[in-house]
C-alpha cells in the first residue's frame, strides 16, 4: 500500500507525535508498505533526517493552546503539500492532529479520497482562535473517512467536539529497542530508583517522589534517585533536605538512544504522575526494558499495569505510601523479578507490531469506505504546470523577509 503520513509538528524537535509517526512509519516499511512522511523540517540537510521524510518548509513558533507550538502554515507550505500529494499518489492519506493549524490541515484541504486522521490531544482545547475557526475546521474534518484516537480521553474529545465516533488504537512501544538494554556504565551498585519526565511539569509528579525520599532513606539507607528529563530542578531540590541532596542524581535531557539504558539502571521505575496521563508510554517503555514499575493508581496506569499484576500501584499523590511501597519493593528481589517478568509479558500487547497491524486494518477499511479511490484532488495542476501558488509564495517570502527556502 502507498501511505502518505502528515506530521504537523517540526520533525527536528523531539515530541510524542513525532516519535509516534517515526515508529509507525518504520513499522509499516518493515511490513513492505511504501511510506512518505510530510513534516515541517528546520534543517532539511541534516544527516540524520530519515529518507522517508519530505520537508514542508520551516516552522514558525506560534503561541497556541497555552504553550508555544512550532507550526507550518502558509502559501509555501501549501504548495509543497500539494506537490507532495501529486507526486505520492497515495492509497491512503494518514493525517495527525488535523485540528491544529499546520500541514495536516493544509493536506485535508488539498486532498480527497481515502483519508484517516489520528487525534492525540487528550485535553479539550478551548481557545478563541479555535472557536472562531471551528466551522471552517469542521468542513475540512468532514472529508475524513476514518478517525483514530490514541486514548479513551482523546476519543472522548473527538466525540464531544466533532461528533461521530473514533476508533481507539493506543500508542505503541518498540519493545525490542528496549528489551535487554544494559545499564548506564559506571553506576554504583546501590539500590536505584529511576524517574523520567519533565522536572518542572507538576503533573509528572517528581515532587511526590522527592517528598518520599526522607522516609525512604530511613528504611533503605543507601538508596539513590536517578532523575532524567529536561527542566529546572532548583525549585524542587529546595524541598529536599540538604543532607539528602547527594542521593539525587540529575541526568538532564536524555536522548532517545540512551533512554533504554536509563530505565535499565533502575531497580524500580517510578511513575508518580498526579493526573493527565492519557496512556503512560513511559510505563510501557520501562516494562519493555524489564525494569519493575511502581506507578500512581491513575486509571490509564491501572489499565497498562493490569490492575497491579504487571506492576505495583500506590495511591496517587501520596508520598508516604510511595516511600513505603518503594522500600518494600527494594527489599524484595523476588517480587521485583516477578513484576519485571509480568511487565515484559504484558507490554507485548503495546508493541508497535500489534499496533501497526490494527492501523493497517483501518487503512484497508478506509480504502473500502472512501468515496474515490485515489488521494489526488481533481483540480491539482499537472506536474509540468507552473507551480501553483508560486506568486503567492514569492509575495509571502517578500513580506516575511525570508529568503528562498523553496527548492
Amino acid at each position: 500500500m502507498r501511505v502518505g503520513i502528515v506530521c504537523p509538528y517540526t520533525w527536528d524537535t523531539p515530541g510524542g507525535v513525532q516519535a509516534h509517526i517515526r515508529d509507525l512509519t518504520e513499522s509499516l516499511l518493515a511490513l513492505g508498505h511504501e511510506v512518505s512522511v510530510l513534516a515541517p523540517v528546520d534543517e532539511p540537510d541534516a544527516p540524520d533526517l530519515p529518507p522517508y521524510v519530505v520537508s514542508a518548509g520551516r516552522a514558525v513558533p506560534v503561541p497556541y493552546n497555552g504553550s508555544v507550538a512550532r507550526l507550518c502554515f502558509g502559501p509555501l507550505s501549501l504548495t509543497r503539500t500539494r506537490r507532495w500529494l501529486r507526486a505520492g499518489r497515495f492509497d491512503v492519506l494518514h493525517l495527525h492532529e488535523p485540528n491544529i493549524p499546520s500541514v495536516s490541515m493544509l493536506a485535508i484541504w488539498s486532498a480527497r479520497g481515502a483519508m484517516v486522521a489520528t487525534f492525540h490531544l487528550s485535553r479539550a482545547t478551548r481557545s478563541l482562535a479555535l472557536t472562531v475557526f471551528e466551522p471552517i475546521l469542521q468542513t475540512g474534518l468532514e472529508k475524513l473517512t476514518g478517525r483514530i484516537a490514541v486514548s479513551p480521553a482523546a476519543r472522548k474529545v473527538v466525540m464531544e467536539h466533532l461528533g461521530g465516533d473514533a476508533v481507539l488504537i493506543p500508542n505503541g512501544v518498540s519493545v525490542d529497542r528496549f528489551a535487554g538494554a544494559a545499564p548506564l556504565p559506571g553506576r554504583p551498585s546501590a539500590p536505584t530508583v529511576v524517574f523520567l519526565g519533565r522536572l518542572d511539569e507538576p503533573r509528572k509528579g517528581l515532587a511526590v517522589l522527592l517528598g518520599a525520599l526522607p522516609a525512604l532513606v530511613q528504611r533503605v539507607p543507601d538508596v539513590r534517585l536517578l532523575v532524567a528529563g529536561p527542566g529546572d530542578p532548583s525549585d524542587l531540590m529546595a524541598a529536599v533536605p540538604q543532607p539528602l541532596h547527594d542521593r539525587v542524581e540529575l541526568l538532564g535531557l536524555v536522548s532517545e538512544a540512551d533512554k533504554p539504558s536509563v530505565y535499565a539502571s533502575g531497580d524500580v521505575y517510578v511513575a508518580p504522575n498526579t493526573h493527565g496521563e492519557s496512556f503512560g508510554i513511559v510505563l510501557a517503555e520501562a516494562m519493555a526494558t524489564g525494569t519493575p514499575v511502581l506507578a500512581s493508581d491513575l486509571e490509564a496506569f491501572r489499565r497498562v499495569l493490569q490492575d497491579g499484576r504487571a506492576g505495583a500501584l500506590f495511591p496517587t499523590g501520596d508520598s508516604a505510601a510511595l516511600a513505603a511501597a518503594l522500600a518494600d519493593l527494594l527489599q524484595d528481589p523476588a517480587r521485583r523479578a516477578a513484576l519485571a517478568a509480568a511487565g515484559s509479558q504484558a507490554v507485548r500487547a503495546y508493541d508497535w507490531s500489534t499496533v501497526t497491524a490494527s492501523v493497517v486494518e483501518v487503512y484497508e477499511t478506509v480504502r473500502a469506505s472512501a468515496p474515490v479511490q485515489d488521494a489526488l484532488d481533481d483540480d491539482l495542476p499537472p506536474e509540468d504546470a507552473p507551480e501553483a501558488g508560486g506568486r503567492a509564495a514569492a509575495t509571502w517570502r517578500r513580506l516575511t523577509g525570508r529568503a528562498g527556502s523553496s527548492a
Partner: protein
Amino acid sequence: MSLAQVVLLVLVVALLGVYTSWTAGRLDRLHARVDAAWNGLDAALARRAAAARAVGHHLPPGPEADALEAAAAEALEGGPVAREGVENALTRALRAALPLLPGDEGARAARAELDAATTRVGLARSFHNSAVADTRAVRRRVLVRRLHLAGHRVLPMHFDIDDALLPAAGAPSP
C-alpha cells in the same frame, strides 16, 4: 427604498447565495461520504457472513449449526431492508455456536478469519456512523431545512448492531 437599504438587500441576497451554494456542495460531499461508507460496511458485513458460514462447516451437526447456516444465508442476501435485525440474528447464532467449535487447525483458521472480518465490521460501522452523524448535523440546520438544500435525498440512518463475539481462546483481550 433608500440606497443603503438596496445595498443591504443586495448584500443579504448575495451572502445567502454564497451560503446556499457552499452548503449544497458540502451536503453533496457528505452524502457521497455516507454512500461510500455504506458500501464499505456492506462489504465488511458480507465478508463476516461468508466467514460465519465457513465456521459453520466446522461445527458438529446439530441445531446450532443449522441456525448458523440459516442466519448466515440470510445475511448473505444483503440489502438494506431490516439489515440490522438480520445481522444481530447472525451475531446471536454465532455466540450460540462458537463454544461448540472444535480445536482443530481448520476450525481455528475459520475462527481467525471470522475475528478479522468482525474487526472490519466494527471499523466500517464506526466510519459509517461518523459520516451519518456529520451529515445529520448539517441537515438539522434551520436554513438547510427551510431552503431544502438536501434536495430529495433520504436522511441517512445510523447502523447499530451488536457484533461483539467472545474472544477466541488465547486471543489477546483488546
